[in-house]
């Protein structure tokens, strides 16, 4: 998909490409889908930063007079079986998933971009070997490889989960960047830079990288969505987060059993939170995909 963008704007000068990019950015900022997604994501980011001041109760505060109490004016989202305020736990649970999702995606993007730049530019045997490995890793479901790695390492550390997800994303992002770089490295400005005997590092990071930035940004938002998906699922399965920490996945798995006795609020609200966070990121990446014609 990135090949086509490379060819359509390939014959234009670098200056023209810059203006095209700026115009598209303006379009993005006017796009309703993007704005709606950004609005919801912004809401969750604010809760990530200021959650501790906003939450009416502490994450572990228990009120045994209100056990599994349905939503009321005192507890807007009700309380769970341990008498803890569901609203506060949803608000305080934001931080973990948002911080983990962003850091693992940033890690994966940095590693993947380096891999893609290297394989796309140097080609040859190196490229072939790396691509075989990438294919092998893609043949294992993300969730299973993450579970395996998390079990093999020290089970419940969020930092470790971030590293594992970042590494799992690396090959996929690498593949996208590689395709874009392959298209770019044929273009005249790269040949010109080579003729000027610029250093390889300069050609890769100063000449090619800025031109493959749009697909990287789109890939980042797509992966961010997957990261939220993966982290929510892993924490639901009890892997990758600390026991008892407020987070949406564990909240759901802890309270899931009570749903059959009609105590739906400790499960439904964190589930809605996961859904809205995931959808907001998807709206952003959808709008970028459409506007950048990738």
């Amino acid at each position, binding site marked *: 998909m990135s090949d086509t963008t490379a060819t359509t704007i390939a014959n234009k000068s670098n200056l023209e490409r810059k203006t095209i990019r700026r115009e598209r950015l303006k379009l993005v900022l006017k796009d309703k*889908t993007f704005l709606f997604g950004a609005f919801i994501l912004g809401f969750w980011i604010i809760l990530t930063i200021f959650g501790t001041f906003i939450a009416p109760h502490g994450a572990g505060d228990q009120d045994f007079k209100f056990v599994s109490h349905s939503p009321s004016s005192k507890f807007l989202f009700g309380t769970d079986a341990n008498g803890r305020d569901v609203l506060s736990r949803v608000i305080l649970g934001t931080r973990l998933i948002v911080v983990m999702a962003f850091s693992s995606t940033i890690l994966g993007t940095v590693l993947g971009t380096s891999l893609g730049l290297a394989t796309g530019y140097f080609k040859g045997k190196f490229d072939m070997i790396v691509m*075989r*490995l990438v*294919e*092998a*890793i*893609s*043949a*294992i*479901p*993300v*969730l*299973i*490889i993450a*579970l*395996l*790695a*998390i*079990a*093999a*390492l*020290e*089970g419940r550390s969020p930092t470790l989960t971030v590293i594992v997800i970042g590494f799992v994303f690396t090959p996929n992002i690498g593949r996208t960047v590689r395709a874009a770089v392959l298209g770019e490295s044929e273009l005249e400005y790269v040949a010109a830079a080579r003729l000027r005997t610029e250093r390889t590092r300069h050609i890769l990071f100063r000449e090619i990288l800025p031109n493959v930035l749009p697909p990287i940004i789109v890939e980042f938002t797509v992966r961010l*969505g*997957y990261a*939220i*998906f993966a982290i*929510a*699922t892993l924490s*639901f*399965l*009890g*892997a990758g987060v600390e026991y008892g920490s407020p987070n949406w996945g564990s909240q*759901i798995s802890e309270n*899931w059993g009570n*749903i*059959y006795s*009609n105590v*739906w609020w400790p*499960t*439904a609200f964190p*589930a809605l939170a*996961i*859904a809205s966070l*995931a*959808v907001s*990121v*998807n*709206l952003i990446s*959808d709008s970028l995909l459409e506007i950048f014609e990738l």
Partner: protein
Amino acid sequence: MKRFIFQRLGLAVITVFLVCVIVFFLTHILPGDVAHQYLGKGATEADLKEFRRVFELDRPLLSQLFTWISHLLHGDLGQSMQYRHSVSSLLLPAIRYSSKLAAVAFFLIVPLSIAGGVVAAMNRGKKVDRAITVGGLSAAVIPEFVWAIFLVLIFGVIFRIFPVSAFPPKGERSILNQIWYLILPSLSLLLVLFGYIARITRAGVIEALDSDYMRTAVLKGLSRRKAVVKHVLRNALLPTIAVIASQVPYLIGGLIAVEIVFNYPGFGTILKGAVDARDYSVLQAGVVVSSLVIVSFQLIADILFAILNPRIRQKVSE
């Protein structure tokens, strides 16, 4: 054609072999050895030694890797650290259950998603199209277990249409009843996979609708509907097959979470149990088996793709 199939088969074998190597080193080279990890901090030196002897962990890594792979080739998946009996006796029944769920899900997902894509393409740019494409992809980013929860809440708890577990009680296990119990879990898988498949089908149908042969078909007097069924679908389904195969890893990943929500005794439940108990032999075998399934589907899709697409068929036979 034969050469093409052998070539693909060779690549598939290499991929699975690499998966085995990656999985092996992931469990063995990472900090802390398997015996320590499994037995925990309280283990004595003698326990560790005995454990390493039983699971042959006291030999050099490369020779362990070699034995493990040669055992795999003979169909021996090893011993479960947790239950101390063979991994295959644990995995096989679970895989049978999971395949049932996957089959029901597959028969729901494929026709519905393709139909969705065709409807979207025929109504290009209209509201139906937007709803299917944007709605489908938004649904796809919500994890299966979250969908499962919403579905159980709505159809199981509030309206009481579908059962809330995935497994009928003893004595009610007729095939139809088993399928009935698997509908809700399959729907949660459908909601995640629908968007991707529908989107690719839509793109394929639109391309075919704009093609010369479609114009010819309409000009020679075929109705639009007939032309779509006769000419468009055949061509548009090609990329769809490739996408469906590429979604198999997600389907398998999704099975795990869904099985746990519905308390279904499949592959995912076994794997989750193995993670909790740090049963590395089961985990390793599980990863290898799932990658084997995924690679086989990819292979089948590649071959189908080549058979259905005359251009590739020609190139292959040259």
